[in-house]
């Protein structure tokens, strides 16, 4: 596993909320987790980033006691997930990829169900329910059944249900997949609020921007292993520059430009070239001058500063998915 230079002097001032050591899991012959190692510090926001099928949901399911690992050791909130599952369950809350709400009940009834299952006293429960409904802007809709709820409301209720038991550690499996931009931003605000209260948040996402926005640490999962981890800034530092995207009107111009810039031409119908830069203006000017000299007509030019997408591409050799997709999950 590759480690970050900045990671070496590990500070022991904060304790680990989650540790996983050499975790392996396969389904039939399909190896899904291949020696996963991770540590999440108490009170931090940790984002597990990876494409579909990389093992994100399997990881969450193992950490949240839904699934047994084949090998390895996992401790959550100081307890072993295999041997002390109930103690782990006392400390965690899970908001899964598929909404874990009861569609035939009202919002308030859903929260009351959770309060009852957490064995809260009736009076404490009603106060907590009212508080959560207000905090997640669901007070008005509280007594309607969920068939009238929007996707964003459903997701907020889902999270409110997770929070009823005041968990120390919260797992959010793709919390914003399928949400519209506004609901996504609301969800981000909520996650930031949780982190502000000292809750440890473990989230998975396919969206690099989301990890960038929310996480103290990001780990990139590919093929069942972490290929990198660090702060978003550390990861971006691993890709020194961005690139310039150039597109051309026709195949001839494209080939000429590829020759002039010594950039690898791709097969197929692509008319776009990518030239690596360290982000300075001189390089852009240089590219344009070279194209002029070769007499190539440029259609569009865009400058791309490095983001986690580039890190992802550099580390996994394939682009990150940006379209919302759902991973195949069965019970």
């Amino acid at each position, binding site marked *: 596993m590759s480690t970050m230079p900045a990671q070496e002097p590990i500070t022991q001032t904060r304790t680990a909320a989650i540790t996983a050591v050499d975790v392996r899991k396969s*389904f039939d012959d399909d190896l*899904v987790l291949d020696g996963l190692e991770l540590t999440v510090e108490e009170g931090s926001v940790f984002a597990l980033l990876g494409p579909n099928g990389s093992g994100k*949901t*399997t990881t969450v*399911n193992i950490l*949240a*006691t*839904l*699934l*047994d690992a084949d090998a390895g050791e996992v401790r959550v909130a100081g307890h072993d997930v295999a041997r002390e599952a*109930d103690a782990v*369950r*006392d400390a*965690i*809350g*899970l908001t*899964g*990829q*598929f*909404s*874990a*709400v*009861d*569609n*035939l*009940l009202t919002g308030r*009834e859903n929260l009351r*169900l959770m309060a*009852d*299952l*957490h*064995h809260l006293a009736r009076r404490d429960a009603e106060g907590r329910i009212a508080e959560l409904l207000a905090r997640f802007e669901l007070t008005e809709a509280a007594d309607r*059944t969920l068939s009238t709820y929007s996707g964003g409301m459903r997701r907020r209720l889902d999270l409110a*249900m*997770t929070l009823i*038991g005041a968990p120390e550690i919260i797992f959010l499996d793709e919390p914003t997949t399928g949400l519209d931009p506004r609901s996504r931003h609301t969800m981000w605000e909520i996650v930031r609020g949780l982190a502000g209260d000292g809750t440890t948040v473990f989230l998975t996402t396919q969206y690099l921007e989301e990890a960038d926005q929310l996480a103290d640490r990001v780990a990139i999962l590919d093929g069942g292993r972490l290929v990198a981890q660090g702060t978003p800034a550390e990861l971006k530092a691993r890709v020194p520059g961005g690139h310039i995207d150039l597109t051309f009107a026709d195949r001839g111009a494209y080939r000429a430009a590829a020759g002039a810039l010594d950039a690898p031409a791709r097969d197929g119908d692509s008319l776009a070239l990518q030239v690596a830069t360290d982000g300075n203006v001189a390089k852009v000017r240089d590219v344009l001058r070279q194209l002029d000299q070769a007499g190539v007509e440029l259609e569009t030019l865009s400058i791309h500063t490095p983001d986690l997408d580039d890190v992802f591409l550099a580390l996994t050799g394939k682009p990150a998915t940006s379209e919302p997709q759902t991973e*195949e*999950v*069965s*019970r």
Partner: protein
Amino acid sequence: MTTYAVRDSATMLRRNLLHLRRYPGLSLFPILMPVVFLLLFVYVFGGTLGNGLEVGGGRDAYVEFLTPGMLVFTIAGAAQIIAISVAMDMTEGIVARFKTMRIWRPSVLAGHVLGNMVLTAVSVVVLIAVALAIGYSPSAGPLEWLAVVGLLVLVAFALTWLSVALGLLAKSVETASNMPMFLFLLPFLGSGFVPTDSMPAGLRWFADNQPFTPITDTLRSLLSGEHVGRTGVVAVAWSLAIAAAGFLWAGYLYNRRPAR
């Protein structure tokens, strides 16, 4: 975590009773369908079928013969519903949530079973009321009635657990609604609607040896105040065996970890 067994089961029962109220399409069916079948069999087929009974006596005799069979049919019908509601529940993320909570693990299924027992009780009471209204006159005394209630509860419990297991086994709600189809057919292939000795040899052998026949015969004897005998033991043995098998199978399927 057995400390909270009763409390968590009661919470889940409340949830399932709310489901029954919010989803009348599913909960009214097992209440109304047996009534429709009772009226259909009594008024359409009853005149002819009643004359074919050993005692003869047309429609009036057929009501007496049919009602115990309809009780079993009602319980089997209500049990079919549970497979659908369990399968629906398992496709929802909320069950995964329950599994990550420190609750009494069997409470999710216990809530389904208890909720279905309530639905079954309502269905049976409605059926008996309609049967009495159209002339059914059982001659059972209080002790026999107690035995009838006891056997009905046991049979309902057994078929419910079996159906819960089928609901857990089903990969989708659609298959879950087809799987317990045999529960609908079995009462017809037994002593519920006509005496088995009127059937062709092979079918008759099956009818005499399938569990619904001794259960129906026991109920019929109890309700008409006759001696039950060995059939009662067979009926109870079948019910206990089905209950145990359904319970263990359902427990195994529920605890099976998610595939991914």
